[in-house]
């Protein structure tokens, strides 16, 4: 952006894009089966009208505007319209239960809210008596809302239409809009993102608009994004990953954000759009690989053989080719054939044909999973950042990709390792504190301005940052052996049959774990092996299923035995949980991360059983359904003992 002064707010970036990329698409949405697109200049017109409409509903500078829903163009415009007026957008997770929404709206003191549909309106209405300052709610989809009391409810189309009407009738409004835009400065809070938080209530991360834009400009230069890139927005609107990497980057680079028709059509929409840029947490890649493996298991013997051969070939040579290293000609030829018969068709089926840059972040990715996607020729890279960072601490440059690191530091980011191994950083976009929570802010930021990540890690000689685990989670067995739970869990979760794993061992004699089966993969296996079951619970408790998982645990133990540092942390006992870990029960965060401490408390009885000699244990667990009702699931769970594998060092001795 050398042609003019860099804008210091996102609405100013929008007006700039409306001039320099006027006719290029800015947003797309598949609606009624057709991709509809809006150009940058159209989006600017809509946002202007929207801002006028919001102002007439009473939204003023400094007030909070809550946004709840899935990835929809009009909800993205809601950010811009609020920022235009100097109000602060606060996105919330669409799948939050009413209570969680009530807490955040109340904590943020939301003045207005825009929501996608009836489901969200219902949630707000349930908690509305806790929200005295919430003056009005705008909804995008009118379905089902016809008979609601419209005292404080407004359809979005009406707000936009009234804005357009007002702009047409009162020419003076244009000047007022320009003045409002010019009032925005680099010191405005451009967004407050509530982090899902692995512990306690969510905290509101405040980001300043000038800092944010400075950080975005670095990341755009890093991966050379232009207005010609394409992205499909499918991750939660309220997640930093979507807000920073999709929305903010799109505004700076001018690329088009496409919104899927519904959550269920993401895969199909990926194929139609063919994004050049993709971002997903490891879980998404895991799901894709599981689905692929399951589909291939159902294919004919010939196809299966071809798939196996070329995937094994890619695992040996694919990464070397992608990293630009020298390989013999016959390997290159064979890989080219593999591209033709397996890799490209597979990438096409996943919607990855045109991917130029893909990232995984948010959690450590299993090395096998990571190299699978790289080996078939997809430029998947790792990055590391937090909501508090605004964008990234570290990121892997093309040809600098390794499975065990999260990359080198981003420009203008400083990192230091605290005495206890915790990674601390200072970044150009970093947050200014948690909203209305000075105490938590003081805990998170050191007096000299570094942000504590809570992650343990180290910088190696090449300047790559390694993240091992949450610093509070890294522990030791009683005999002093290192115990990094996530490291073990990731190894387990690479098996498609294991959906979730939680390892225990800190301060104990040996390592144990709780496992969740993957219903798709294990269900499919059960069907092919005549394992009769009537429910998830029955399948999870089936002897043959437990034996199947024991094989996987054995394989992980053999893997752990290879490294002297991890050989002591082999899994001695495990059990298969009778219910799926679920965010509604508080066991996972909304971004599907395991809440280890909570699980340890909730399943204390099971954990104790793992460390006593018993062979079975009775479990009764309370569950919360989506509508808030509660129920109990009980089961008798078997515990499986594993023989530890001798460490390599011992074998040699």
């Amino acid at each position, binding site marked *: 952006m050398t042609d003019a002064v860099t804008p210091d707010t996102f609405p100013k970036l929008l007006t700039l894009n409306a001039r320099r990329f006027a006719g290029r698409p800015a947003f797309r949405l598949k609606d*009624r089966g057709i991709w509809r697109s809006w150009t940058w200049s159209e989006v600017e017109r809509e946002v202007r009208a929207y801002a006028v409409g919001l102002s007439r509903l009473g939204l003023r500078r400094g007030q909070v505007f809550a946004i709840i829903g899935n990835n929809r163009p009009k909800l993205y415009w809601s950010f811009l319209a609020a920022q235009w007026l100097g109000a602060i957008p606060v996105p919330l997770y669409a799948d939050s239960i009413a209570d969680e929404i009530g807490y955040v709206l109340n904590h943020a003191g939301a003045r207005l809210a825009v929501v996608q549909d009836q489901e969200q309106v219902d949630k707000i209405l349930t908690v509305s008596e806790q929200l005295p300052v919430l003056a009005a709610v705008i909804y995008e989809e009118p*379905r*089902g809302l*016809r*008979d609601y009391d419209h005292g404080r409810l407004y359809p979005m189309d009406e707000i936009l239409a009234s804005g357009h009407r007002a702009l047409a009738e009162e020419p003076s409004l244009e000047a007022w809009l320009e003045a409002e835009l010019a009032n925005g400065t680099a010191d405005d809070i451009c967004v407050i993102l509530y982090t899902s938080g692995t512990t306690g209530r969510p905290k509101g991360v405040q980001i300043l608009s000038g800092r944010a834009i400075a950080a975005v400009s670095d990341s755009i230069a890093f991966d050379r994004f232009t207005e010609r890139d394409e992205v499909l927005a499918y991750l939660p609107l309220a997640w930093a990953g979507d807000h920073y990497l999709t929305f903010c980057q799109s505004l700076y680079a001018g690329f088009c954000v496409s919104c899927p*028709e*519904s959550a*269920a*059509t993401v895969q199909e929409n990926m194929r139609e759009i063919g994004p050049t840029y993709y971002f997903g947490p490891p879980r998404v890649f895991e799901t894709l690989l599981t689905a692929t493996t399951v589909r291939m298991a159902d294919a004919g013997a010939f196809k299966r053989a071809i798939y196996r051969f070329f995937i094994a070939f890619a695992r040996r040579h694919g990464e070397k080719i992608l990293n630009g290293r020298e390989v013999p000609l016959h390997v290159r030829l064979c890989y080219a054939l593999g591209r033709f018969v397996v890799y490209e068709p597979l990438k096409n089926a996943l919607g990855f044909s045109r991917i130029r840059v893909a990232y995984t972040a948010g959690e450590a990715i299993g090395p096998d999973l990571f190299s699978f996607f790289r080996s078939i020729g997809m430029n998947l890279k790792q990055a590391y950042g937090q909501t508090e960072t605004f964008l990234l601490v570290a990121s892997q440059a093309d040809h600098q990709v390794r499975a065990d690191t999260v990359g080198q530091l981003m420009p203008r980011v400083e990192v230091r390792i605290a005495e206890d191994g915790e990674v601390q950083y200072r970044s150009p976009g970093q947050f200014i504190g948690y909203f209305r929570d000075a105490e938590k802010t003081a805990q998170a930021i050191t007096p000299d301005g570094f942000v504590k990540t809570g992650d343990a890690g180290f910088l190696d000689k090449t300047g790559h940052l390694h993240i091992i685990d949450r610093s509070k989670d890294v522990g030791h067995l009683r005999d002093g052996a290192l115990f990094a739970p996530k490291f073990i869990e990731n190894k387990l979760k690479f098996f498609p049959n294991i959906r979730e794993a939680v390892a225990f061992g800190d301060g104990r004699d040996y390592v144990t774990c709780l496992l969740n089966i993957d219903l798709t993969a294990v269900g499919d296996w059960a069907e092919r092996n005549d394992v009769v079951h009537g429910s998830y619970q029955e399948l999870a408790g089936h002897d043959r299923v437990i034996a199947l998982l024991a094989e996987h645990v054995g394989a992980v133990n053999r893997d752990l035995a290879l490294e002297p540092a991890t050989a002591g942390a082999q899994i001695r006992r495990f059990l298969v949980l009778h219910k799926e870990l679920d965010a509604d029960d508080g066991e996972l965060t909304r971004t599907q991360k395991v809440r280890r401490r909570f699980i340890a408390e909730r399943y204390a009885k099971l954990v104790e059983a793992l460390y006593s000699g018993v062979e079975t244990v009775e479990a009764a667990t309370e569950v919360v359904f989506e509508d808030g009702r509660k129920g109990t699931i009980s089961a008798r769970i078997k515990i499986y003992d594993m023989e530890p594998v001798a460490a390599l060092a011992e074998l040699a001795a």
Partner: protein
Amino acid sequence: MTNAAAGETLLAVEEICLRFGGVQALSEVSFDIKRGEIRAIIGPNGAGKTSMLNVINGFYRPNRGVIRFRGQSFTRMRPGFAARNGIARTFQNVALFRGMTTLDNLMTGRTLKMKRGFFWQLLRYGPAMDEEIEHRRAVEEIIDFLEIEAIRRVPVGRLPYGLQKRVELGRALATEPELLLLDEPMTGMNLEEKEDMCRFILEVNAQFGMTIALIEHDMGVVMDLSNRVVVLDYGRKIADDAPAVVKQDPAVIAAYLGVAG
């Protein structure tokens, strides 16, 4: 539209008798369906509920009795006439084209509304194309309404049962009927699918003012959905009233519990 339950009579059956050989499937059944209401037909197995629907849309010819539809009287209805005049139905055992996609199945619901002939359709040009676009738009509205975007291109035979039922409802809606006959729309569904289906039925009724007659076994569903309930037992009408009243009726309780009464 006025209050749903107080609308004028859209369809009435009067003293319908239906016999298969020696079996008396229906004897002297009379009831009416008012414009804009949701009317439930309930009863134990073999009570004659499906036979009644078949009489209404012309699959069966009654031995005696009269059907009044929009003020006209018929001694029998014909399926083609019924379909052209705004009576659509779904079946107890899903009756879709299993090899065709969801989209194509819904498009068949528009067949009666296509005006261009076979050769125009073959050309797929000019007026025929305009017409196809218009019908496709109507079908896309239904796809959006029923939230089945993700299965638009999936052959119906590959879908789970609950979704097939939803597609069948979609095809019935595609004909833009005045009266929708639903034969056990919730059988074989889990709780969540049932709740979805209830939501769709209520929305169809409220949003498009469509009149609905449905056969259902789940009493909870009947209580929640319908304005009035007619109860059949061994081919006879034993009650006809608001759901809350019908539930208390000793004759109905006896019929359901099998007590000789």
